[in-house]
């Protein structure tokens, strides 16, 4: 494979597609798939085969178009988006290819949900077929890799990534360029690369969507990173709960191997790289990098103290680079357009865009990509379309079990790593759950503590015992059986866990409790002093909580 050959593939794919006057795209990512979008796709295909469409028409099964709540989504190349499409609508959609769109199915795209987004990671999602490498190549896929292999040295690549200001999208926000240069400098017999696709946060589905919609983008990012740090073998650690993402990754790896984009002496250079999948098995703690490494090694996912950091001593004791799916997905556009281009987007310290999974009590649920620095209000009210049923906003939860709940007073705060941390939450991997007055914040805190308790790996005492104790107290509060003494115990435990736990899971487990106690103290008070739950969620008595 040479740059010329790549260009040829892109050319012939574009030519093939230009034979069709019309293109109908059907979302076949998991969200729409669970609303039977595949049946819609085959209905369209059948209908096209049965009739003559002037100019020709192709049907593409594409990735996520974002507005999951209105699926199945179908778009045509005249920029018309249809929502909640059923099999029976196939002929009406095809009838309307040249004329006026089918009125009752149209989903307006001139609304903030679509207009306020800036798509970098998701630029191909909803446009290309995830299971065809040619389609990715026709959309300038792998051109960044070619550029890197033929024109740049590894240190130039790292410099470009550093210049972009990209920070780790897994949640902690460590500067990507810095991480890469540490691994590049590390000495080892062999270096490894890991893509963390163990999206364990409940309420987050960005990585799944990227893997399902545009798997080659992640592979290209990994290849560029491997070249930059000198790694020769890579693993994608993906949740077993994401069968569709696994299937598409496997296809993508095979296709890339067939074209010589993955393998030995890639593009005739001395650079060789192979990638394999490792399936996670449902352990939240494996999001922590040392636990993830243990899991890839076939062991229980238990973290170990750092240092040594994985950059020095990681997988099988060798220097290892670990980045998240979204981080890798940002790499190709950064190389194509330059680090300076990327650095122009976002805020002073948080560059670029972030993909958020918007869910919960909000009208438009789905996947959105917005520039850093956008306000929560814009996300919830403009893009998200506000709270349904005229209810009142109460909080937005970011960062999953390691994050916090932000009340109304933070709605106008620009979203970036520093601001979220200052407000008592974290960026996290990008889950954003909106809650209204019908949610009880003590119950939400209990939900997350219950999660952390059962996900604690049990290695260190503060986390193993602390999460259990905190959960017990929270349970007592939600049963109206706790008093002031328990509240102060809870506070003591938050400090203990934060400062003495071994890994991020335990250190951040108290965050939901801390933020809800800080911003929703009146709700705790109502439970403790008034023996009542303002949202009407918690009940006293014998009914024990399950889960």
């Amino acid at each position, binding site marked *: 494979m040479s740059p010329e050959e790549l260009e040829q593939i892109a050319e012939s794919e574009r030519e093939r597609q230009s034979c069709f006057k019309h293109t109908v795209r059907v979302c076949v990512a998991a969200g729409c798939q669970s609303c039977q979008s595949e049946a819609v796709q085959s209905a369209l295909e059948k209908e096209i085969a049965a009739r003559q469409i002037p100019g020709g028409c192709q049907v593409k099964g594409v990735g996520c178009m974002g507005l999951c709540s209105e699926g199945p989504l179908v778009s045509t190349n005249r920029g018309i988006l249809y929502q909640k499409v059923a099999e029976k609508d196939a002929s009406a959609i095809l009838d309307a290819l040249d004329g006026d769109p089918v009125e009752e199915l149209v989903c307006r795209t001139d609304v903030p949900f679509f207009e306020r987004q800036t798509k970098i990671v998701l630029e191909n999602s909803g446009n290309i077929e995830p299971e065809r490498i040619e389609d990715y190549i026709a959309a300038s896929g792998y051109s960044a890799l070619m550029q890197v292999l033929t024109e740049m040295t590894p240190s130039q690549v790292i410099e470009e990534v550093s210049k972009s200001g990209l920070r780790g999208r897994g949640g902690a926000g460590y500067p990507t360029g810095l991480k890469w240069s540490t691994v590049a400098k590390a000495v080892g017999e062999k270096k490894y690369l890991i893509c963390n696709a163990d999206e364990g946060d409940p309420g987050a589905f960005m990585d799944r969507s990227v893997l399902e919609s545009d798997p080659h983008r992640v592979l290209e990012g990994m290849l560029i990173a491997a070249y930059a740090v000198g790694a020769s073998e890579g693993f994608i650690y993906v949740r077993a709960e994401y069968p569709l993402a696994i299937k598409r990754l496997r296809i993508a790896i095979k296709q890339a191997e067939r074209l010589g984009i993955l393998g030995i002496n890639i593009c005739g250079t001395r650079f060789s790289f192979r990638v394999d999948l490792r399936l996670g098995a449902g352990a939240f703690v494996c999001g922590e990098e040392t636990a993830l490494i243990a899991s890839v090694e076939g062991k229980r996912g238990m973290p170990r103290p750092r240092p040594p950091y994985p950059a020095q001593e990681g997988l099988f004791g060798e220097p290892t680079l670990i980045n998240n799916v979204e981080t890798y997905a940002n790499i190709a556009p950064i190389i194509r357009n330059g680090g300076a281009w990327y650095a122009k987007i976002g805020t002073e310290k948080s560059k670029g865009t972030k993909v958020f999974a918007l869910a*919960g009590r909000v009208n438009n649920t789905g996947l959105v990509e917005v520039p850093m620095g956008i306000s929560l209000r814009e996300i919830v009210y403009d893009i998200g379309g506000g709270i349904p049923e005229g209810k009142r906003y109460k909080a937005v939860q970011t960062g999953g079990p390691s994050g916090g709940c932000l009340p109304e007073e933070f709605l106008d705060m620009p979203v970036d790593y520093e601001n979220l941390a200052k407000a008592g939450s974290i960026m996290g991997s990008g889950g954003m759950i909106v809650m209204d007055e019908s949610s009880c914040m003590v119950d939400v805190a209990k939900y997350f503590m219950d999660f952390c308790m059962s996900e604690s790996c049990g290695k260190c005492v503060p986390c193993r015992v602390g999460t259990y104790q905190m959960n017990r107290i929270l349970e007592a509060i939600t049963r109206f059986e706790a008093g002031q003494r328990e509240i102060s115990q809870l506070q003591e435990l938050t400090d203990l866990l934060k400062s003495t736990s071994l890994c991020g899971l335990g250190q951040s487990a108290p965050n939901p409790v801390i933020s809800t106690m800080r911003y929703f103290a009146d709700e705790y008070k109502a439970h403790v002093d008034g023996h009542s739950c303002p949202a009407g969620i918690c009940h006293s008595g014998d009914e024990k909580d399950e889960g």
Partner: protein
Amino acid sequence: MVTSGIGADFAKPTPPNASDKRWKLVDATMRRLGHHSRGLIESLHTVQETFGYLDEDALRYVAASLRVPLSRAYGVATFYQFFTLKPAGEHTCVVCMGTACYIKGAPQLLSSLKRELGVGPGETTPDGQISVLTARCLGSCGLAPAVVYDKDVAGKVTTPDLRNRIAKWKPHVA
């Protein structure tokens, strides 16, 4: 490729039921990973995918084949939530307990299942028909609350939806 110093005296264990062709799939996975201990999780995935769950015989066989202590195989099998040591019922009903589903009514769905079937999460009805399970997060948060009936993901599930769907599984209820 990684080799693990397989001794000449190492006798390859025989599968619990050698006539069952399905063990060939498990063997293939172990071979692909060079019978190395680091292939333990992948091998257990294949066992579960093939047989539906991990029983003691399977654990013994995989442990012996990869030359890891049975305790380690058992440790891994019980550490990860995805692995199950019990066979599931004829049908499975997985209620997603992710944050979005939780605040949109997943606990109510679970208690309705408890009322209907008399079983809680992780349990199977006494007739072996229906297993109720929970998932950490299916990643279908845009469609919360989500439930997986056998392999079908359903979104925006209401209690009546759930009851109707379950009723179809119950053979003859007076």
